[in-house]
């Protein structure tokens, strides 16, 4: 949630399409298109540096996700809090991803001191 000045809270990129190109960040569950991730990375997880390493996009995101939630106001949204995305930038998220970050990326999270929660196993 980086302020861009002018009072507006930074909003993550909004998916430009709704089809199969959509991917979700495995950590924060932000949903964007593959191209968006490749070009500007993930707003919540800049440390993955997806924009620098395109291979990373594949590793850090997944096309397998369930449900979509557009969070306009994460701080005041109960849904966002419930989904534990209340502290992320406004944007489109998914309700659940099925895959876990690979261990290397999990280590990055740890180094960056950012929380990472494994997807719940059914």
């Amino acid at each position, binding site marked *: 949630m980086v302020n861009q000045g002018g*009072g507006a809270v930074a909003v993550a990129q909004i998916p430009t399409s709704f089809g199969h190109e959509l991917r979700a960040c495995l950590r924060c569950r932000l949903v964007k298109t593959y191209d968006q991730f490749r070009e500007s990375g993930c707003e919540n997880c800049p440390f993955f540096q997806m924009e620098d390493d395109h291979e990373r996009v594949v590793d850090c995101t997944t096309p397998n996700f369930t449900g979509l939630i557009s969070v306009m106001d994460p701080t005041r949204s*109960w849904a966002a809090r419930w989904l534990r995305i209340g502290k992320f930038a406004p944007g489109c998220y998914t309700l659940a991803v099925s895959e876990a970050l690979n261990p290397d990326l999990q280590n990055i999270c740890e180094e960056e001191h950012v929380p990472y929660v494994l997807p719940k196993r059914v």
Partner: protein
Amino acid sequence: MPRRRDDYEDDVEEDDEYDGVDEEDDEADGYDDGGKVKRKRTTSDFIYDEAEEDEDEEEDDDDEDYGGGGGARRRGGGKRHKGASNFFDLEAQVDSDEEEEEEEGDDDFIDPGADIPDEDDRRMHRRPLLPREDEQEDVEEIERRIQERYARSLNVEYDDEATDVEQQALLPSVRDPKLWMVKCAIGREREVAVCLMQKCIDRGPELQIRSAVALDHLKNFIYIEADKEAHVKEAIKGMRNIFTGKIMLVPIKEMTDVLSVESKAIDISRDTWVRLKIGTYKGDLAKVVDVDNVRQRATVKVIPRVDLQALSNKLEGREVPKKKAFTPPARFMNIDEARELHIRVERRRDPATGDYFEKIEGMMFKDGFLYKNVSLKSLSTQNVQPTFDELEKFRQPGETGDGDMSSLSTLFANRKKGHFMKGDRVIVVKGDLRNLKGWVEKVEEDTVHIKPNEKGLPKTLAISDKDLCKYFEPGNHVKVVSGATEGATGMVVSVEGHVVNLVSDTTKELIRVFADNVVESSEVTSGVTKIGDYELHDLVVLDDNSFGVIIRVESEAFQVLKGVPERPDVALARLREIKYKVDKKIFAKDRFKNTLSVKDVVKILDGPCRGKQGPVEHIYKGVLFIYDRHHLEHAGFICVKSDSCMMVGGSRANGERNGNSLTSKFSHLRTPPRVPPSPMRPPRGGHGGHNNFGGRGGGRGHDALIGATVKIRLGHYKGCKGRVKDVKGSTVRIELESQMKVVAVDRSHISDNVNVTPSRETSRYGMGSETPMHPSRTPLHPYMTPMRDSGVTPYHDGMRTPMRDRAWNPYTPMSPPRDNWEDGNPGSWATSPQYQPGSPPSRAYEAPTPGSGWTNTPSNNYNEAGTPRDSGSAYANAPSPYLPSTPGGQPPMTPSSAYLPGTPGGQPMTPGSGGLDMMSPVVGADSEGPWFLPDILVNVRRPGDDTTPGVIREVLPDGSSKIALGSSGNGDVVTVLPNEIEVVPPRKLDKIKIMGGAHRGATGKLIGIDGTDGIVKVDDTLDVKILDMVSLAKLVQA
């Protein structure tokens, strides 16, 4: 925390937040100095965390109370942000220093961090109310740090796996925004949600909705989160794909359900087993060969379902009948076959993998498999549970256990939690330690600590559970815990890689299961032998009017051997596909027009199973299901046409036939058939039985007919019934029932199935002997029952012994006394199980004991019984410990009479009586008794009537008796059910008839009564016996 609030007004907000994490009340003083004071955080602080949890919550409440003042506080926070940021710096450092401690500490109790996001969020709620313009940078900085900070504590929390309790703290309250359900265009759910997002960005804060949710599984609707319905209306105004009609509020209790989605736990990767969800291959097992995650497609290999003929027709432009319902069976593609049908087969090399494929009509084949490119969405990864058969098919011919293993390991992904348990024997299947065996010591999340088998290795090794497989050795007794055979138990007989072959305790069948699906268990369960009304070995009629025998019961379906005699056809039938069970007694004719009924032993004369023989288990529509325990397929069942069989031995259904029938071993337990009506054959007389045993002794037993009750169909004696005395060529000598004479009749003139006569419904039990017959039949039932219930199929060798033991054990204790008493005359001993202490032993030695008369028979009896084809030989053997001392003739005779305990009480009274004890389970358990004898005085109790004395004239096969009323039996003759009859206990010096024990049927005189024992002088032998009073009935001679 009013104190703190007073003291640190400026810090209120931050303090609150910190309290959530650090509970540093005591050190709060330090903050005042601009955070310059070194904080002395020790681990002991964390110990307080738990205690202070409550305080924390109070604070929460406080916060809520202060809700209105949020703005003010916020402003305050802004003012002293300088100091605060200093503080944050420090805090951050300290935190990172002590990260580990914190994490450790938190492991042990309710994570104080649990509340943090909550609080954090709430704080943030208020934030937008603030004028942000002035101190943006700093606030931002603060926020960032706060976030960072909490992020870390969240980290801790997540590491501990967010529990439900923690999640519960986030449950919606009335203060939270509500969810509203809005209708939208189908298929546009995501689009609508995204558009709403875009709209909010464009329009800024004027749209007051908080979020919009599009669920994959809910078409036509999206949810919008907002405080007021008006906000929702505002937001959806002018949206193309949203129908503004109705806005439904989601009840607060259901809000969490909306957001609870199951994430697909297993993603699809190479070598994963999947099932196809749609199309021709729906439900088919497939193996993932390649996955294209970007395009969301996968290449899978399946066993083709290609109708080559249809394909060829299509290619050649011929008319293709559009039979949609028809799905070609799955079978491997045979390229040559395709070529024969002039189908063009291209050989292509896949540029990516370099593998060659055969391409037919756009379909790629390799090694007979079809390689199919499908959408990931059309694959189901959940509960794939490949069965063994399926996997076997997938196994490449050249593929060894290793290749198998790699794919097996993908199965492991389906494991349930708690798969491994301490003490499990495991083997490493992957990595450097492959093939290392060991025992599970400890199980953590995904790591299993094993104690290796090998020396020179560390005590325990931590290995990922994905690299482990359970391991068993032959001889282990195991239980199947998942898969089609779930619940079955058995003994491991061999291990092939990760496949365990076990012999089921129930069916004795070989079950192939993955080691992974098995646990070691001493439990012996029957496994499932019954679903609904249908049991193993039942004859059932299926949906399509075909019929068959259930030869295996799986967890949800039955394997049915269809009644198609030409070739064995096994179908899998689900419960609902079964129409009904066939229970009727149906008969069929064998090749020689002998009437076959269930239990008759037949020999198969032609067809694939020619030469096999066994008892008929079921008959239906002229088709026999024969059980041959040497037949290893289909649980021993063979389906044949009745006219390709020949009856071997006698019809078991006819009680009198002794042949080698199942009942034969019990035949010695029953009175010779037809006894009562035929004066020629007094119940205990040798003559009647003579036929039986003589016949057998003389080796004529091979002719099934001897001893059978038959009806003469043609000729002078047409309609007469009688017992076959002898068979010579095509002539049968029959002892007529009605005329006391033996006549010779042509074999073809008889029908050996007397029960065709309606009046003789049950006469196949032997009409005269009906009574005795029943008990002797009864053992058949328990005998049968285990076969179904507990899986103790009597025909299965293994089960015999226990049966026999049970049945015969009672004797064992008797043996020593026998030795003591009557070393010289075992025969007499046997006849007198009643030789309780006190009985005059001298009597025992009397020559005329029936037993001695039979001394020569036992061997025959014995041999006969022992013939292999006699499925009941177990029983025949069973008495052997007893026989040596008991001339076999004896048991055949005496017990038969002995056997019918007139009253249930008969059983206990004869502890030593062989026949009786053997039967005792029956007697005790069976409601069929009591078994009365003719000529005894009884009281008839009929509902509504008083008790009237009567004399039994005849005992009918169905258990009821014809009774002549009046104490001397000269009144009316009525037919009375057994439960209406009460035996009149004899008094001293009465003439009596013995209803139970070895002497059943014998008459005598009650010379004394001793408690429950009666002292009886038996007429024939002049023996004096001590018998239980309940087995004695007053004799009234007509």
